[in-house]
């Protein structure tokens, strides 16, 4: 068995910071993972604490054991690192790690959603992305769940109980929030309101997939992929558009960017060792 090559990936997103430790030797293996909500804290502090937690828990040290610590997302918040990768690159590679034969990765994050077409090496071939509009984002669902007095973890299951979804205008988060308030005052069932929101966001995601001419199978990743109601809404709408896609998600979908960063970190570690252009910390 080959000696372990530990790498770390830290994905600083709009709402959460995700971190993983990966053993890059042989077939990459996820060693440990942790996600932390930023709330109103300093993301740099949250990232540092998350890294320290993972290292300590696994009895590793940054200086001696981690060959490459890669950041992605808002990488400047990660103070100790070896390198940084663009979040589309990391989500593409992470998506392929979670679903070996994935052809399309759909990242549904807090601030935007994007569909990425990849090749068999996890390279980005093409992409489509939502614009700067809050109504296509995970943050929007968080806001709505807060108005409805629900925890974000609850909304997925509640959405699955809907029988007559109330779809908001869907044009703008501000208008949609007004719609939600109206729906509540009209006595519409919470499950139907939530499902309507999910369908509204899902319609944007299906538009991205259509425009991209996505190939199957598609893996849904990012924070919103944890939300069963959201995943179901995307599947429903894709079927309505007569797309014959295989759409899946993964329990570790929220870690996709961090996993991709850790894998690329391992790849760069080997590459740089070949080139001997950097002095790495790990002693042979």
């Amino acid at each position, binding site marked *: 068995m080959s000696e372990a090559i530990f790498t770390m990936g830290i994905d600083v997103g709009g709402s959460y910071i995700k971190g993983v430790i990966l053993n890059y030797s042989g077939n990459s293996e996820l060693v440990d993972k942790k996600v932390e909500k930023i709330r109103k804290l300093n993301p740099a502090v949250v990232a540092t604490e998350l890294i320290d937690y993972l290292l300590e828990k696994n009895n590793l040290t940054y200086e001696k054991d981690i060959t490459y610590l890669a950041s992605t997302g808002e990488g400047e918040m990660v103070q100790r690192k070896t390198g940084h*990768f663009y979040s*589309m*690159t990391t989500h593409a590679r992470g998506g392929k790690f979670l679903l070996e034969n994935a052809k399309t990765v759909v990242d549904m994050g807090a601030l935007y959603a994007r569909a990425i077409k990849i090749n068999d090496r996890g390279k980005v071939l093409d992409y489509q992305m939502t614009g700067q509009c809050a109504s296509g984002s995970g943050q929007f669902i968080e806001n709505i769940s807060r108005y409805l007095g629900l925890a974000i973890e609850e909304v997925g299951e509640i959405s699955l109980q809907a029988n007559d979804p109330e779809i908001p205008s869907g044009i703008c988060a501000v208008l949609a929030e007004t719609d939600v308030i109206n729906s509540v005052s009209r006595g519409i069932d919470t499950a139907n309101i939530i499902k309507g929101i999910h369908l509204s966001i899902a319609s944007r995601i299906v538009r991205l997939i259509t425009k991209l001419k996505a190939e199957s199978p598609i893996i849904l990743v990012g924070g919103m992929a944890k939300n069963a109601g959201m995943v179901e809404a995307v599947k429903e709408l894709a079927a309505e558009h007569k797309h014959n896609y295989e759409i899946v998600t993964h329990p570790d979908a929220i870690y996709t960017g961090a996993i991709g960063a850790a894998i690329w970190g391992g790849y*760069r570690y080997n590459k*740089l060792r070949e080139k001997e252009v950097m002095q790495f910390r790990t002693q042979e």
Partner: protein
Amino acid sequence: MGALDTVINQCKEWAFDLNFTRAKKWKSEEEGRILAGYLPIYFPREIVHAADGLAVGIMGTGDRKQVIKGDAYFQSYICRMPRGIIELALDNNLDDFDGFIFPSICDVIRNLSGMFRILDKGTFVKYLDFPQNFQSHIGGSFYRKEMQHIIDLMCEINGITVTPERLNHSISLFNKNRQMLEHIYDIRQEYPWRLSIVDVYHIIRAGLVIPVEAHNDLLEVICREIEKDTGEPQDRVRVVVSGSFCEQPPIGLIKSIEMAGCYVIDDDFMLGSRWIQGDVDATSGDPLRALSEAYLSQSPFSSSVYDVDNPKEERLAALVRKRNADGVIFAAPSFCDPALLDGPNLQKGCEARNIRYISFQYAENTGQFKVIKEQVGAFSDSIKLWEDEPAEV
């Protein structure tokens, strides 16, 4: 706070002081001192220094001032820099200046010199025409007359005769300045993590608004400090930035390039400060000729120089090789005719030599860098991960 941080913080303060406080203070300290403002790209500051003057670089307002009146002076399809400079003039930020020099770079700058004349700013307004003929007896002779004209204009103000000794002394001070700037770039070529490009930018820009003696003192500290083994290397690609020689990119944009995974190891920001490559002869009996010869034979490639026998794309490729860069980022201001006209040729030259590049445009007051950061991030990853298309990763 260490010596390096102290110097950098001081430079940050001076670099974007649109009231030119430090320069005005210098002028007020002694009778007869002259402040001469000059615009990008290059101006031989030595001749002002020798006449007991301070040549102050006016690089625009960046994102530090809201331009209202300036917009009335220019059409919508003109770059942004002159709008800010007119605004400064109309807001009296330039009132203590004795004169203004507008080096020939493009029609916009030429027209701006006319506006300064109409606005009656300063005792003199000089449009400095650079030679486009690179033979000493033609272009050189013309350029010497242009420089002498500026010296005469200053002499009319303070009566100081610029002797060869005075001018040689000034040349030696600016030689030292350029040597230290080059030394900083040379150290950064090997150890770019020791000093960020944003810090380098502030350090050079501060040098445009303070006396060269004071700037040399700061540069000595910086050179000493960055020779120490500090900081930790990161796995980033090494890039040359080209096209930003006149209207300056906002600091946020420069920072975004590094945050997206690059080390900027050479650039043409503040190109005028590094214009003359190597020393100017500081021992001759005809220093104006020495300055002229240096311009003719030691200038870098630039969109403002029509040097047909010395193709710019080859010189850019040579710079990439010299700095061991992985690629080029073409960052040009919107509506900058010189930069945007040269862009396609330079990019074609990169393609022919298999040098990777990207290009984008900006304005000095651009406030959103997300798209640029994503573009640069993708560029950086394409070099790091797909350079030789790995079979398995």
